[in-house]
């Protein structure tokens, strides 16, 4: 597909034919860039519209024709949002929940994966198959009993209620196990000879070598938790305990036509993830390609 047309023109081309080919190539290239730019516009204009709306004064939000460039450019909606709505608290909740979920997944998944990849024990294949089987069951199947369980524990509106169900990941274990299996064992064997324990080998040798897989799992665990909506919607009632997505939905319910406020909240929710993505692009791409994992 990426071969230039020159190759197919081929043969002994006369000067005239050569020029037509060049013009054709130019047209092709223009058309190609045209398509690229059009695609990029379709993908980015809505997000820019989000930012633009969030920078409008109240009286310029509902206007016809819509203003794409707000005049004047104001940050009132952000200030009002901070003042009238616990958005700062929600931001901290999201950050805390996503960070703890990510760290918990990294630790428990990699430990279990170490057991599966490095310790032969009776029934290990059976337990691992069991892990794989749980991957097939959609989260929605567990949600009603999980909610009842959380109520029973008294964990509605708590951080443990928000965090714990997201920490123990069969998928993370699977991902880490596959990576561990690809790491050669020579270093570990030498360490065992020197009397190292399993913990030392896991913590000092295997984990450092598994950094790429840990990075991939980390960005996906963080993203899933940061963007999660269904579970927080179930488990949280009080605005002070809401994460950003649930808070946003509430915000919209309260100020239905104040799109500048709603879009300001959306910007606050979206920007951190886009920054994480730009910093860790490679990990996102690898995770998706390996597993079809999505946010």
């Amino acid at each position, binding site marked *: 597909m*990426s071969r230039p047309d020159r190759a197919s023109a081929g043969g002994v081309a006369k000067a005239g034919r050569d020029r037509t080919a060049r013009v054709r190539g130019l047209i092709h290239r223009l058309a190609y860039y045209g398509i*690229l730019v059009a695609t990029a516009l379709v*993908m980015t204009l809505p997000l820019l519209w*989000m930012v633009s709306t969030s920078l409008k004064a109240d009286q310029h939000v509902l206007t016809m024709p819509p203003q794409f460039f707000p005049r004047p450019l104001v940050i009132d909606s952000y200030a009002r949002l901070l003042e009238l709505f616990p958005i700062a608290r929600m931001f901290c909740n999201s950050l805390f929940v996503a960070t703890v979920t990510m760290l918990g997944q990294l630790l428990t998944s990699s430990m279990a994966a170490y057991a599966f990849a490095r310790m032969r024990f009776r029934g290990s294949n059976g337990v691992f198959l069991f892990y794989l089987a749980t991957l097939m069951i959609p989260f929605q199947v567990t949600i009603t009993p999980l909610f009842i369980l959380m109520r029973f524990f008294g964990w509605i509106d708590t951080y443990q209620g928000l965090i714990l169900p997201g920490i123990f990941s069969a998928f993370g274990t699977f991902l880490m196990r596959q990576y561990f299996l690809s790491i050669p064992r020579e270093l570990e064997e030498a360490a065992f000879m020197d009397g190292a324990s*399993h913990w030392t080998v896991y913590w000092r040798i295997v984990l450092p070598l598994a950094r790429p897989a840990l990075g991939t799992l980390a960005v996906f665990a963080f993203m899933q938790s940061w963007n999660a909506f269904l579970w927080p919607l179930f488990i949280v009632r009080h605005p002070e305990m809401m994460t950003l997505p649930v808070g946003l939905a509430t915000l919209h319910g309260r100020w239905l036509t104040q799109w500048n406020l709603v879009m300001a909240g959306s910007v606050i929710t979206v920007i951190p993830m886009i920054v994480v993505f730009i910093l860790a692009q490679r990990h996102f791409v690898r995770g*998706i390609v390996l597993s079809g994992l999505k946010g």
Partner: protein
Amino acid sequence: MAGERGLRKFLWVILFLLPNLAGLLVFSIAPILASLVLTLFEWDLLTPPEFVGAGNLQRLLADRDFWAALGHTLYFIVGYIPLVMLLGLAVAIALNRRVRGVIVFRATTFFPVVSAWVAVALLWKWIFNPRFGPLNYLLSMIGLEGPAWLFDPHWAMPAIVLTSVWKDIGFVMIMFLAGLQAIPDEYYEAAALDGASDWRKFIHITLPLLGPTGFFVLAISLINSFQVFDQVWVMTGGGPAGATSVLVELIVKNAFSYSRMGYASMLSWALFILVFLVTMVQFRLQKRWVPDV
């Protein structure tokens, strides 16, 4: 001696496996089993659970809301899957070139994928706003009168489909891009020597070799789209007039608004069976269609 070593080894296994396994048992496995038991009961969480046996199943089969939600979910799938796969493939092909700036284009396609669904859904609800939204304004500039979108039972689902396609194009694109880049250059070079046109190269090399990727993308997208929820909940809440009510939204309403825990579990098992069937068909067909890679 051997017994002691066996015991020590067993303790190490427990130490490494237990945190994850115990958590999984409490927060996944137990709820899955409980959900199965719950389908036999009706429980509003206030009065003691009442055993209804197959009552929930009978109710499900006779429930118009369930069949409507199933229909809407399938409608969503039929609109969403072909669009997102074709456009994702097209963008992947366009971006599979080593030209300047292509990295930036790939990244921008990916922004919606990493954004929270709630924020994206709110954004598009605003874009689709029939009176003040930019979309109908753009349509009016080319002389079209846009519909009421989310307020119109006929246009609400197409609007949700478009939003979902926009959000997921980057996801599909990345997988196809990986598939495209795995095709060895030699194949194209050989075809070029034989004088094959770009189109023939696409039909005879690219498409067949993309088969496994396409199949994988299809399966994942299908499973995900049976679980469509966030965008529906935020953009329409299942309306207008129930026109966009989907399966997961029905589960949430039964558990939340009507406090019917048993029936909500029944619905979620119906969802599981659908997803399970897709997975099984995928396994079967994968063996037949996809050449060994």
